[in-house]
């Protein structure tokens, strides 16, 4: 019996379900085509008369808070991922639910990490029905093998906000781990031993959930400033010994690449931006946390320094390299969604030019505009790209779901989107006839930089014109694909059953693609 009985072909030619976990779903209609009408979802009215006048909402344990919040079968429980692989809170929620015999919960994390592998146990025993958010590593494998009861739903950071705002997802209980909080529930991520920078991924949760629990290991007397999360939204505050493992929160693993091949990608990407006139005094950029992206920042710095230019703003994920650019005056502002190391946390706390953002300000589809479309240069990664410039970030070429979308889809709206990717990883070609899963439609992806050549999307006639006399090896995407296959051989496609195990949502909430159950070898 299929979990999703009716499938239709959407605007990018992919077969997608029209019902997802019992709710109707709209197939992807094209970029900017779907504009639902009506009103934003709203949380229940609260009355301050129901809350302690002294502002003290502290309860003795997470279990007590969950019970008081009315935890019961079938609820949706949300968490954020600012602690990345150092999160000690999310798993505890489900330990408690399991202990209480609660079943069929939906976990709604903003992302999952390898530390969440224990959740597979709760997926198996029925404590958790399914996950909407991201299914990384072991959870992805579990999903791909068809073991999850419901359909997985993958959303971007902006899409998560959208889904909450238009009522697609109703959060029953939000659990917000906060590095510092006061008894009223005001909280921030810039102070405390589990400091992680912003708490923006939990903003929608605080505003829209029926019940909000703030969990901290650093309780300070009111007021907790800055208050990135307002206590006015919060029902209960829980104090624990330890909510996160600092060295895994700010892992410092985001180092410049030493790989000569990746450095070449970085060098060519920066050169491309320069030759195409994308870098100018007052430009803006977003580079991810990968080693290649970081190295591009170093090349940008050289160009800016030499010409005495500044970037008006850079989008984080921030880290020491971006902070260095800010402090050297090469970047005027950092608008930061998440912080990858302690230099980033310190800078956000102390430097008024380094501010936190949330998916609401940066990415939300139901905002009256958002700034993702104002960024000049966006550097992103991908597991696969196809000859139509469609790209994949969630599955690998062997068909397995292994990653989440993060902010990747949202940033595609930047003015020039560049994907520096190797032409093949070991023997796996990155450029394919067709990507395993479409996460971003090709019309939004402008340039693919590989170590054997650079392909410009034919839609970007302006860039093609500018790069006509470039010294860089400009090729067609078809040529790049042929080169990869000449070296690696033509890869066979993974074999799937006809069961959909998860769907990829577009930023507007429509279904962009399906992820299929892998067939046993």
């Amino acid at each position, binding site marked *: 019996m299929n979990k999703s009985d009716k499938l239709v072909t959407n605007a990018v030619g992919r077969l997608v379900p029209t019902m997802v976990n019992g709710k109707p779903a709209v197939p992807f209609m094209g970029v900017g085509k779907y504009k639902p009408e009506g009103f934003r979802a709203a949380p229940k009215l609260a009355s301050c008369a129901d809350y302690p006048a002294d502002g003290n909402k502290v309860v003795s344990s997470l279990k007590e808070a969950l019970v008081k919040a009315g935890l019961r079968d079938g609820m949706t429980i949300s968490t954020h991922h600012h602690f990345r692989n150092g999160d000690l809170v999310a798993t505890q929620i489900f330990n408690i639910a399991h202990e209480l015999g609660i079943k069929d919960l939906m976990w709604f994390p903003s992302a999952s990490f390898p530390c969440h592998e224990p959740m597979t146990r709760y997926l198996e025993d029925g404590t958790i029905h399914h996950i909407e958010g991201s299914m990384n590593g072991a959870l992805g494998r579990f999903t791909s093998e068809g073991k999850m009861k419901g359909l997985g739903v993958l959303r971007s950071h902006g899409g998560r906000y959208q889904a909450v705002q238009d009522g697609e997802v109703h959060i029953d209980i939000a659990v917000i781990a906060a590095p510092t909080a006061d008894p009223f529930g005001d909280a921030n991520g810039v102070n405390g031993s589990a400091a992680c920078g912003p708490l923006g991924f939990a903003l929608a949760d605080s505003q829209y959930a029926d019940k909000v629990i703030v969990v901290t290991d650093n309780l300070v007397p009111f007021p907790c400033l800055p208050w990135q999360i307002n206590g006015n939204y919060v029902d209960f505050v829980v104090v624990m010994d330890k909510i996160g493992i600092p060295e895994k929160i700010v892992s410092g693993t985001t180092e410049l690449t030493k790989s*000569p*091949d990746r*450095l*070449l990608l970085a060098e060519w990407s920066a050169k491309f931006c320069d030759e195409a006139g994308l870098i100018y005094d007052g430009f803006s950029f977003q580079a991810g946390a990968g080693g290649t992206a970081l190295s591009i920042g170093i090349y940008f710095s050289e160009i800016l320094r030499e010409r005495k230019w500044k970037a008006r703003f850079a989008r984080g994920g921030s880290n020491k390299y971006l902070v260095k650019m800010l402090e050297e005056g090469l970047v005027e502002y950092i608008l930061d969604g998440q912080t990858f190391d302690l230099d980033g946390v310190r800078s956000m706390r102390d430097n008024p030019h380094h501010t936190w953002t949330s998916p609401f300000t940066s990415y939300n589809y139901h905002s009256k505009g958002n700034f993702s479309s104002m960024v000049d240069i966006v550097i992103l990664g991908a597991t696969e790209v196809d000859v139509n410039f469609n790209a994949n970030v969630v599955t690998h*070429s*062997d*068909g397995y779901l292994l990653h989440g979308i993060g902010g990747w889809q949202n940033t595609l709206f930047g003015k020039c989107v560049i994907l520096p990717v190797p032409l093949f*990883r*070991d*023997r*796996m070609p990155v450029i394919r006839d067709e990507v395993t899963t479409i996460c971003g439609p090709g019309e939004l992806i402008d340039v693919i930089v590989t*170590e*054997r050549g650079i392909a410009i999307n034919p839609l970007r006639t302006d860039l093609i014109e500018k790069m006509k006399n470039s*010294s860089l090896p400009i090729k067609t995407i078809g040529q790049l694909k042929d080169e990869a296959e000449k*070296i*690696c*051989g033509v*890869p*066979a496609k*993974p*074999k799937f059953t006809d069961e959909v195990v998860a769907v990829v949502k577009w930023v507007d909430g429509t279904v962009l693609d399906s992820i299929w159950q892998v067939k046993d*070898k």
Partner: protein
Amino acid sequence: MGVIAKTGNKGKGVRSDCSVTFELTDHGGIQLQVESKVAVMYGDMIRKEALEILDFFGVKNANVTIEDSGAISLVIGARLEASIKKLIPSEKNWLPAMLEENRYTTAKDRNRFSRLYLPGNSPSLMINAGIHKPDGIILDLEDAVAPDKKDEARFLVRNALCGIDFYGAERMVRINQGERGIEDLNYIIPYNVNLILLPKCEKPEQLQAVNEQIRKIHQKHKLINPVWIMPIIESSLGVINAYPIASSAENTVALAIGLEDYTADLGTKRTIEGAESFFARSMVVNAARAAGIQPIDSVFSDVGDMEGLRQNVIRSKALGFDGMGCIHPRQIAVIHESFAPAPDEIDRAKKIVFAFHNAQKQGLGVVSLGTKMIDPPVVKRALNTINLALKMNKLAENWRESYEQI
């Protein structure tokens, strides 16, 4: 039964390689196990090609295990052939197709600023080597290969010469010393290697032996492409014999120095300042110049120290060297940049070349700059500098037009 051959590499950190275990049996046919990181995409292809190779070598009964970490076909082929030949000697070769783009020859006096060493038994470093645009790539069969891996490296290097595109880099192989080195030639000469590096060269006879073997192979395979030789001087005796070595064979194009072995031979240590090798380096430069070939410097081994490398190249250029070995692709750009003509050199060369053209135009036999007469060798060097600057995009093709307007 019970005789097992193993080739290749596996384990953590191994990429683009595979490990083959080959056991001959007396019955039961071919039992082939393939475990691959890319099984979904290439598992069937790996099986098919492995069976073809086993059949090609007439293997009827064997247990074969391939543990693959994403190796491309020509690597798996090399590993399997090497393991088969450990147990079944054969004159036959299972060759990947020779790429059309690998059939180029190189000029005797081409630029040899950088030559990138690639360990001959490490496929992961070979596949992308050419994209970094060294002047030459060296597939090393000598010191970079462990003694027990030297046989299998020959097959890998052979297959790389056939099937890996090095994008115009001069295709070089460093052979082993002595008799093994002469044997190495059989595995590489038929596959359009452009240049042979001859390690620990101490006397001209070593070159003669190499050339004799090359001649035989050329005759047998009816080959005509030139094979250049770059002897490496790595000992005190080699230094003393530098000129006879440099001048003894027509196809010797460069003379290199290897300082690790040389300093060991002297009983001293290699220093950054290099006082201990000043004599040897000067001897090599002098001998090479006397023989009309290129003097090439030793590698700089700290791959993290780009500034140290830059200083080293500047010293090397000042001593008269024309190029240097490198052991990491990131060294290439620094080496090219530092061997390239400096702006003041180019400026001076422009003046001289401009004066030279003027003199020609006016039918004058003597070139002069202001009141100073310019000797022909100075003009020649200036012309070389300009050519080099043009080649390295340091100078616009139409520089003379803009120069005349000044």
